[in-house]
């Protein structure tokens, strides 16, 4: 299955992935309209230090502790993609507690949010990958 993989060697710490993610999941068709004046809450996040940067988003594990620990059945695996049904999610954060990569985040709305590989908003390729200027994030079979 194709997943998002990160190679920190090439991450520039430009944070474009975060903005592209926030835009892709905004439901708005113009980036300016979607993001101007807002604090973004992307599903991918860049960790940075002086010389190292890398983006982190859901690994879509084969053995997903988040799904196994989900009390409501809101998290599930669909064709390998770990998806969140935000309607069912009650915001208990067991998944936040379970995820070894810190890839499920809380949101204002209550339900948690996480990367769903843009399966619900864009065709083909996750937008963090599409917009990465240096192939630091790739979407491929490994």
């Amino acid at each position: 299955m194709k997943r998002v993989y990160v190679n920190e060697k090439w991450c520039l710490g430009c944070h474009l992935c975060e903005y592209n993610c926030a835009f892709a999941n905004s439901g708005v068709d113009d980036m300016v309209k979607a993001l101007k004046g807002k604090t973004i809450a992307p599903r991918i996040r860049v960790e940075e230090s002086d010389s190292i940067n890398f983006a982190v988003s859901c690994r879509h594990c084969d053995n997903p502790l988040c799904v196994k620990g989900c009390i409501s059945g809101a998290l599930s695996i669909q064709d390998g993609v770990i998806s969140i049904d935000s309607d069912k999610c009650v915001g208990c954060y067991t998944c936040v507690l379970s995820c070894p990569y810190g890839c499920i985040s809380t949101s204002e709305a209550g339900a948690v949010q996480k990367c769903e590989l843009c399966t619900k908003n864009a065709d083909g390729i996750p937008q963090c990958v599409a917009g990465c200027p240096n192939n630091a994030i790739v979407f491929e079979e490994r």
Partner: protein
Amino acid sequence: MKYVIIGNATAAIGTVEGIRSVDKYGEIVLISSEPHFTYGRPLISYLLLGKTTEEKMNYRPLDFYETNHVTAMLGRTVTSIDKNIKAVILENGEKVSYDKLAICTGSRPFVPPMEGLDTVERQTPFMTLDDAHRLAELLGEQKDKDVLIIGAGLIGLKCAEGILHLSKSLTIVDMAPRILPNVLDEYGSSFLQRYLEDLGMKFYLSDSVARFSTPNHAIFQSGMELDFDVLVVAVGVRPNTSLAEEIGCEVNRGILVNTHSATTVPGVYAAGDCTVSHDIAADTDRILAILPNAYQQGEAAGVNMAGGDKVFDQAFPMNASGFLGLHMITAGSYDGEAFITTTENSYKKLVVRDNKLVGFILIGDVDRGGIYTSLIRDQVPLDTIDFDLIRQHPQLMAFAKAERAKKLAQPH
């Protein structure tokens, strides 16, 4: 191969999915005394809180039994097991034979002897969907009931969270000197208590009801007296082990299982709140009545019943127990060297023992806390990571480069 599963909650569903990951066609019969489609047991407080509805509480999609070819016998109770003929016997004497049996019977409320308790008309435990229904009915929608909850553990407090907005007043009493004593440390307890008190809950700690007198009057050990309209008894739970015990499974408070979720009786497995597991954080055997463990134990049981090989050996306590806007996640044991950070709105405690993180408490800011959990789960030697960095906040940067590459550049 025919599988019988007693129970219909997390461990039971884990067992079904575990079996089906290995055996697509073997017959599965699932028997549960609750009549409901499988639902997320902890959701009952959220149901009252209004964060979910009964329609959305199904733990799995509504075609789950069909797609997994499970014969679900709901509202039926197993009264005994005949291990000689390898069959379970139902309340009407019906026998259901099995090749492999999974006991996922969970637990039941524990009610300590209290004088006059039987005179209280409007009371309920808080364990099941039916309990939640009853409680809602008792409360009504007028916000005119004074509620007394006995027990300031997770069940009592989640119940309190769920009904605060439906109650005129809410009082919680517990014999322990602090709330959530099994989940939090002292500072955490008081932090949470202050928060809940600010929202209007009243706590009577190191105290208990000495007796009830009619009508709806409680007299405490301390001498304090309280009138109430509705009583919730949430003192504790006891694992349902009798079925297992009767066929000779070794039981020590809970059913003893190995890391393959097998009991001491061949062909019989057990998972979930009815079992005792090995807590890797505290390095002791104990009942770990928490949902993620229940699922994984069940899953391991299912895989092993179906002839696969799956070990679940990463049990440890972990709780995501936010209350009314205050997020809180905790895991492991608090016995060790503590690293504490506090702010006005948050509390963070990391507990280290023998070069390992064994426990943590995050209140307020829980962001990416799962990374801490993974340190406990994987028993990561802290000298292999940048502990000073990860103490500041959970981050993968603290891991060595090769480890980061494993996490981010390999399939999991």
